[in-house]
C-alpha cells in the first residue's frame, strides 16, 4: 500500500536563497503564531485558535519554491501556515483576526478560516473541516477545463480525512484525472482522538487513496526538504496531465487543539520528543549549520527581520479601524 517517501536530500542541491527562503518562511509561520497567541492572551483576538506550531516544515516545503501565485491552495484550519507560505500579507491575516478593515474580509472578521486572497490562489476555506475536499476538486476541474497548468493543493487534517466527502473527492479526482494534490496533515490527533481511535486503515491514511488508483505516499512532514521534494513530484505529475497525488505528511501539534486545551490526552514524554527532536525549524537549522550553509548570526538576522515584519504587520492591522456596523450588509451578492 502507501509507501514511505524516501529520498536523500542534500542541502547543496539547493541554492542558498531557496534554503533561506524555507527557513524564513518557517520562522515567519511560527512567529506569526506566537504573536497571535499573545494577542489572544491580551484579549485582542476572540474565538478559537488552533496553533500551527510544530508543522511549519510541511507548509513551507510544499508551497515555497514550487507553487506559483496562480496555483490554488485550500488551507487547513491549523495555524495560518499555508496562507503565510503562499504569501498572503501578514497584516491582512492579522486584520481578519482583529476584525479591522485591514483584513482580507475588510472587517467582517475571519479566524483561521475565511481569509482569502484570490490574487495568490487562496480562495478561502470552510468552517466545516474537510469541505475543501469537495470544493478543491471543482477548482482543479476548472483549471483543467480552461486548459491551464494550474495545480490545486488541498490541505486537511487526519481528522478531516474521515469526512465522507473524501470519497466523493478522490473519486472525482481520479476519474477526471484532475491536477490536484491532497496533503493530509497527519498530526495523529483530531482534538482529543488519536487517529487509531477513529480511523480504520490498512496501515496509513494514504492507503485510502490507493483503491482509487491515485498516487500516494507518506512523508515526514517535519522535514522541509523532503516535503518539498514529494510535493514537487506531485506538482510535476499534475502538470504533465497525470492527475492527482495523495500525500500524507506526518507531523505533530506542539500545543493543544485550541488555546486553553489542557492537552493532557497526549503523553508528556512523547510530546517532548516531538518538540525537542523533531522540530522542523530546529532540525533544519542544525542541518544548515552543519553543512555550513549559513552562520548562526545570519539566521538570527533573519529572525529579527521577520520579527520586525510581524510587528509592523500587527501595527498595520491594529491601527486600521473596526468596520461600521453596516459592514454586515455588504457583499452578500455580487
Amino acid at each position, binding site marked *: 500500500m502507501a509507501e514511505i517517501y524516501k529520498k536523500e536530500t542534500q542541502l547543496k542541491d539547493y541554492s542558498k536563497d531557496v534554503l533561506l527562503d524555507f527557513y524564513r518562511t518557517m520562522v515567519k509561520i511560527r512567529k506569526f503564531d506566537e504573536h497571535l497567541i499573545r494577542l489572544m492572551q491580551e484579549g485582542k483576538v476572540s474565538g478559537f485558535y488552533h496553533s500551527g506550531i510544530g508543522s511549519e516544515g510541511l507548509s513551507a516545503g510544499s508551497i515555497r519554491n514550487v507553487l506559483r501565485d496562480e496555483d*490554488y491552495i485550500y488551507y487547513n484550519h491549523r495555524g495560518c501556515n499555508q496562507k503565510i507560505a503562499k504569501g498572503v500579507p501578514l497584516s491582512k491575516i492579522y486584520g481578519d483576526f482583529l476584525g479591522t478593515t485591514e*483584513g*482580507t*474580509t*475588510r472587517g*467582517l472578521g*475571519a479566524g483561521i478560516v*475565511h*481569509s*482569502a*486572497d*484570490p490574487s495568490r490562489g487562496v*480562495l*478561502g476555506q*470552510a*468552517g*466545516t473541516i474537510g*469541505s475543501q*475536499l*469537495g*470544493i*478543491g*476538486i*471543482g*477548482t*482543479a*476541474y*476548472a*483549471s483543467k*477545463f*480552461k486548459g491551464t497548468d494550474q495545480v490545486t493543493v488541498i490541505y486537511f487534517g487526519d481528522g478531516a480525512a474521515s469526512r*465522507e*466527502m473524501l*470519497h*466523493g*473527492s478522490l*473519486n*472525482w479526482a481520479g*476519474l477526471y484525472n484532475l491536477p490536484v494534490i491532497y496533503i493530509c496533515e497527519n498530526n495523529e490527533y483530531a482534538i482529543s482522538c488519536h487517529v487509531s481511535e477513529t480511523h480504520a486503515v490498512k496501515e496509513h491514511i494514504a492507503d485510502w487513496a490507493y483503491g482509487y488508483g491515485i498516487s500516494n505516499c507518506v512523508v515526514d512532514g517535519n522535514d522541509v526538504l523532503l516535503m518539498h521534494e514529494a510535493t514537487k513530484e506531485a506538482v510535476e505529475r499534475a502538470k504533465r496531465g497525470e492527475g492527482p497525488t495523495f500525500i500524507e505528511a506526518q507531523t505533530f501539534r506542539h500545543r493543544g487543539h485550541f488555546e486553553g486545551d489542557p492537552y493532557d490526552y497526549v503523553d508528556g514524554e512523547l510530546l517532548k520528543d516531538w518538540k525537542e527532536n523533531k522540530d522542523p525549524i530546529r532540525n533544519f537549522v542544525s542541518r544548515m549549520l552543519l553543512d555550513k550553509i549559513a552562520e548562526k548570526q545570519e539566521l538570527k538576522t533573519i529572525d529579527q527581520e521577520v520579527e520586525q515584519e510581524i510587528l509592523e504587520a500587527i501595527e498595520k492591522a491594529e491601527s486600521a479601524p473596526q468596520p461600521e456596523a453596516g459592514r454586515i450588509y*455588504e*457583499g*452578500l*451578492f*455580487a
Partner: protein
Amino acid sequence: MRTINMRTALLEALNEEMERDETTLVFGEDVGKFGGINKVTEGLYEKYGNRVFDTPIAEPTIVAAAVGMAITGNARPVPELQFGDFAGIAFDEIFNKMGKWRFMHGGQMEMPITLRLPVGIAGGAGPEHSQSPQALFMHGPGLQIVIPSTPYDAKGLLKTAIRDNNAVLFFEHKLLYDMKGEVPEEEYLIPFGKADIKREGSDVTVIATALQVHTALEAAEELAADGTEVEVVDPRTLAPLDMETILSSVRKTGRVLIVHEESKTGGSGAEIAAQIQEEALFDLAAPIRRIGSPDVPIAQNIYLEQFYRPSKEQIVQAVNELMEY
C-alpha cells in the same frame, strides 16, 4: 405565438446560454448522453461535448465542485440534482457554501451557479422523490430561489439565473415539464424579484407557486362563475420576494390565501403570511389562510397522493370561507 412545453423552454434557455458563454458547464447524474432523466438536457452533450458531463452519484460533491469551479471565475456551473429532494444530501454545500462563501470571504469572489432541482409530487414517487424543499432555503442568506410555473417564465428566469453572478436554486415542478404555454421566438429575460399577476381579481388574493398556480387558476375560473374574483399572484422567485406586488394586491382585496405544495408548517407561506400581516395588518378583512400539503411524509400510494397536493376544491373552499368575513 408558438406554444412549447416547459421542458423545451428550459432546454432552449440552456442552449442559448451555453452558446452565449463558453464557460457554462452542465453536469449531474445522467445529464450527458442520456439527456437527463427528465430529458431537460437532451442534445446538449452532442452539441457541447465536454461542457456537459455525467458525474458519479455523489450530490455533496456535485455541489461542492460547482462552488470550487465558480469561485475561480473561470466557469459558470449549471449542475442538476436528479431529484430536488437530494438537496438534503448536499444541504451544507448549498446552504452554507453556495449561499455564504462569497460573503464570508469578504465579497472577494462570485458564485455564478445555477443549481437545477426537479421537485414535486408526480405520480407515486414516494416520500423521498416527491418533496418540494424550496422553503428551507428562504432561511439561507445568499441564495436566490426561482420557482417558475409556465414555460415562458421558466425560460426567461433560467436565462437570468445562468447569467447571474450569484447563487441560484432553480426549482422545476416535474408535472410542469409537459405543460405547454406560449413562448416567443425572440430572446427575453425575466428579472428576479418580480411577481407576476397570473389573473387579476378584486376579491381575494391567492399567492401560489409552481403547479399550484394552475390549480389556483382553475379554482379562480370556478369561483368567477359564482361571482368571486380571485387575483392569482405568482411570486416566481421566493428570494428575492416581490412583497411590493403582493402587498398591493392584498391592499386591494383584503383577503389572502397562500397555496403551495410544500408541507404547510414552515413552508414559504409562513414567511409570506408573516410579512403580509406585518405590513398590511389593517388592510386585512380576514385571517391569511395557507394551504400546503399535510405535515406528514408523502405516501407512495398514488391514491393517497391526492390528499397531499393542494386541490382546486380546497382552494375554492378556502376562498369561499375568506369571503364570509
